[in-house]
């Protein structure tokens, strides 16, 4: 969880966000196939992928001459867990508390 600020910083760039969305949709892709995302030059794409890789959002493997990129499921799970904040937890719970007590006192 501690690396979430890094995750958000890396995703806070529209191009990188688009790259991640594309990878989520299509699974594993080579850097060359991703370049259509933002009509990027090869060096620009490789810079973005480097940032995403260092933030732990994407992983890569080498297949012959190609570098293949995909999204790390752990990264997305960490984001999902984070979105239940303390405030959301308590406000949601207290709504149910009010309802539960109301039901109880309605009984005689």
């Amino acid at each position, binding site marked *: *969880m*501690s690396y*979430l*600020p890094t995750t*958000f910083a890396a*995703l806070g760039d529209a191009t990188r*966000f688009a790259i*991640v*969305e594309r990878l*989520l*949709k299509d699974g594993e892709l080579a850097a060359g196939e991703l370049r259509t995302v933002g009509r990027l030059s090869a060096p620009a794409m490789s810079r973005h992928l480097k940032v995403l890789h260092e933030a732990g959002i994407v992983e890569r493997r080498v297949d012959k001459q190609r570098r293949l990129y995909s*999204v790390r*499921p*752990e990264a*997305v*799970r*960490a*984001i*999902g*867990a984070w*979105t*239940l*904040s*303390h*405030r*959301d*937890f*308590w*406000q*949601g*719970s*207290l*709504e*149910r*508390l*009010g*309802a*539960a*007590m109301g039901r*109880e*006192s309605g009984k005689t």
Partner: protein
Amino acid sequence: MSELTIERSFPHPPEHVFAFVTEPANLVKWWGPEGTSLREHALDLSRPGPWSSTLVNAEGGLHKMSGEVVAVDAPRSVEFTWGWHDDEDARGHESRVRFEVHPEGVDGSLFRLIHTGLPSDEIAENHVRGWTSALVSLERLLN
């Protein structure tokens, strides 16, 4: 560090509210926001000692938290520590929760929840809130 205070007025006497926010049989009726369900739990805030709970959200994601009840002053207040667990079950940053129940009007109560010692990142939460819907769709795409 930041803190969170939430207040609610309830048309029930303090003893009733206190029982609802501390006793095991009552806690399971409301612990966790709508859309989550409670799995394994040891929820007893009516006496000093450990507590824990695991919630599952609609997408099947697990949220585990645990802590220790450190002070009980029935029917006025209870205080306990709080920490989320990560995927590897390592307990993260510890914060502290205090429930207060104050008499209000005739047979009513003011319930105050104070969550202190929260990581400062959460102050930025509102700025990042716009992320949430985008991230939910990301998560959907992945599953």
